[in-house]
């Protein structure tokens, strides 16, 4: 018997018991729909984290002084003075995988303008910092090399600062704000970036030439950190090892000495966060998978009933020439048809549910082709797996007994 006929027979059998077929299918529908939805939610949050990280600069490399001992007291890394401007110059001039590099020093305090004040920290950086952190100028200009060289008291401000110091909507360009009594004139504003994944306000930012912060605010000669960007995300690892080599040479460390600095990239952060969401996704998929399993058992159960109910039909088919494998194929196809149809409906329903989630609670979702393919595959396998045993049982019936079955 050919496959077309078998499908026709199965369709009729299912059609004769519409409600039962639908209820059996419902198990699969719910299973598949939940797999699709859960994976969509999991993948969506993973994607949104990845895109936020790349907005922060996915090829960014952060260099911080390592923790060390000073006079027998372990110091926090920001108090260590192991990074110097020479390190910055060396990284700037001697590397081949670094696109831009900026030193970083910062101080926190209260900004004052007129009757308004707002607590924030001011970062001393070079103009390349904007490129590294993917910041863009809204109005005005970045400070120039001359202004860096002369430690000019100029700054760039982010939108949160503007909102708090200029609540009446004044144009901040050219205004002078005070930071710990030191006046800085605003020469540019930064475009809004919003909150990042970790809930940090990326617009709460004031940038000034690093020389100005070093000399006029902190009165230090060392730097607190270096930000750099690799030429591309792929060469980040190479850039990190290059930077480490340069710093070790600069700091005259022996081969046995430990690094007195830390080089970190966003990749670590990215892999940490995505592994968290991966675990979440796996967890959700497991729950969904269990419901698919329950659906499969439903199929098996109903196929058993169907075989018992149609014992006489099986006997008749055998007596007029059906072989065991014909009967096996007939019932197997019926089971597969249930799971297959359930799978299609489930995918549509899962897609719809994901879309609703996006609309209603604004969770990021992302339906992966592989999850659709996977759940399709799984439910077909479910059909075969759970349909096999009842179908096998049917095919092994003795036609004489089956014909006599009441």
């Amino acid at each position, binding site marked *: *018997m050919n496959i077309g006929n078998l499908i026709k027979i199965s369709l*009729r059998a299912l059609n004769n018991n519409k409600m039962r077929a639908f209820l059996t299918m419902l198990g699969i529908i719910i299973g598949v729909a939940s797999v699709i939805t859960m994976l969509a939610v999991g993948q969506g949050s993973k994607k949104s984290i990845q895109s936020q990280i790349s907005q922060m600069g996915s090829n960014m490399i952060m260099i911080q002084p390592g923790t060390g001992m000073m006079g027998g007291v372990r110091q926090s890394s920001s108090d260590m003075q192991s990074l110097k401007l020479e390190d910055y110059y060396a990284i700037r001039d001697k590397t081949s995988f670094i696109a831009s590099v900026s030193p970083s020093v910062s101080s926190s305090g209260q900004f004052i303008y007129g009757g308004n004040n707002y607590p924030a920290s001011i970062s001393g950086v070079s103009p390349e910092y904007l490129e590294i952190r993917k910041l863009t100028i809204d109005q005005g200009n970045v400070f120039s090399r001359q202004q860096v060289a002369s430690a000019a008291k100029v700054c760039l401000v982010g939108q949160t600062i503007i909102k708090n110091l200029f609540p009446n909507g004044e144009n901040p360009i050219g205004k002078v704000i005070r930071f710990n009594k030191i006046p800085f004139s605003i020469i540019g504003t930064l475009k809004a970036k919003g909150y990042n994944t970790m809930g940090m306000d990326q617009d709460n930012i004031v940038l000034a030439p690093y020389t100005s912060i070093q000399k006029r605010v902190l009165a230090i000669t060392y730097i607190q950190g270096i930000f750099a960007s690799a030429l591309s995300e792929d060469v980040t690892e190479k850039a990190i090892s290059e930077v480490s080599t340069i710093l070790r040479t600069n700091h005259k460390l022996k081969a046995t000495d430990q690094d007195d600095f830390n080089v970190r990239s966003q990749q670590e952060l990215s892999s940490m966060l995505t592994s968290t969401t991966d675990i979440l996704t796996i967890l959700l998929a497991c729950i969904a998978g269990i419901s698919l399993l329950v659906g499969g058992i439903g199929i098996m159960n109903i196929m058993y009933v169907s075989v018992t109910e149609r014992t006489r*039909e099986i006997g*008749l088919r055998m007596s*007029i*020439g059906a*072989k*065991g494998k014909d009967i096996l194929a007939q019932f197997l196809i019926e089971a597969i048809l249930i799971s297959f149809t359930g799978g299609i409906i489930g995918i549509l329903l899962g897609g719809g549910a994901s879309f609703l989630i996006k609309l209603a609670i604004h969770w990021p979702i992302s339906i992966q082709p592989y999850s659709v393919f996977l759940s399709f595959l799984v439910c077909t396998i479910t059909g075969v797996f759970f349909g096999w045993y009842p179908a096998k049982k049917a095919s092994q019936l003795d*036609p004489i007994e089956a014909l006599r079955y009441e």
Partner: protein
Amino acid sequence: MSKSIIRLDSIKRNFQVGDETVHALRGVSFSISEGEFVSIMGSSGSGKSTMLNILGCLDTPTEGEYYLDDVAVSSMNKNERSTLRNRKIGFVFQSYNLLPKTTAVENVELPLQYNPEYTGKERREKAIKALDAVGLSDRLYHKSNEMSGGQMQRVAIARALVNDPVLILADEATGNLDTHTAYEIMVLFQELHSKGRTIIFVTHNPELAAFTNRNIVLRDGKVIKDSANEHIESAKKLLENLPKQED
């Protein structure tokens, strides 16, 4: 002498029930030629059903050999016997065994579906022809649950005819029908016989044996009588003489 369709050579069939061995058939031998209309009779326990199962290639004898159309059946495996049934035998059952909610023509097509030599179109043509032969050409697309018992049995007979079998095997084919309809079905069998079909009619009802041209009687697993029927009754005549039903 015309060609022999069935040849039984001292057939024995034993069943193991617990520790006991039940001898259902204790050495049965006879042969049936092409074009015969044979009734096999016997009370329950006579080995009639076992006989039917062996003749229908649903079961194989414990001892002895059974030749259907000159093919030895005993040594065949399950699948070979399935194919043999599909090509050579047409079954008619007491309870019709039609597929529920399925049209007459589709029910009749069923045996041909298990024969890959036929295309869909050929199947349909042969099914319509078979239904025509049993006088149901106006009921082709009626579903099995929309028909009377007599009509259902006609569909079942058409199904038994559709594969041009060498043998039609009827098991109490009129057992579920009222006298009037039963006679109608017997008329049909006699017609088929007159057209050269070989028919074996298994029944416990001696009345029906009168319509066949040879009677075989079984008792306790042995043939106790095998004789030609001298006075073949015409079912058609009896049907005409039957008092009109008032309904």
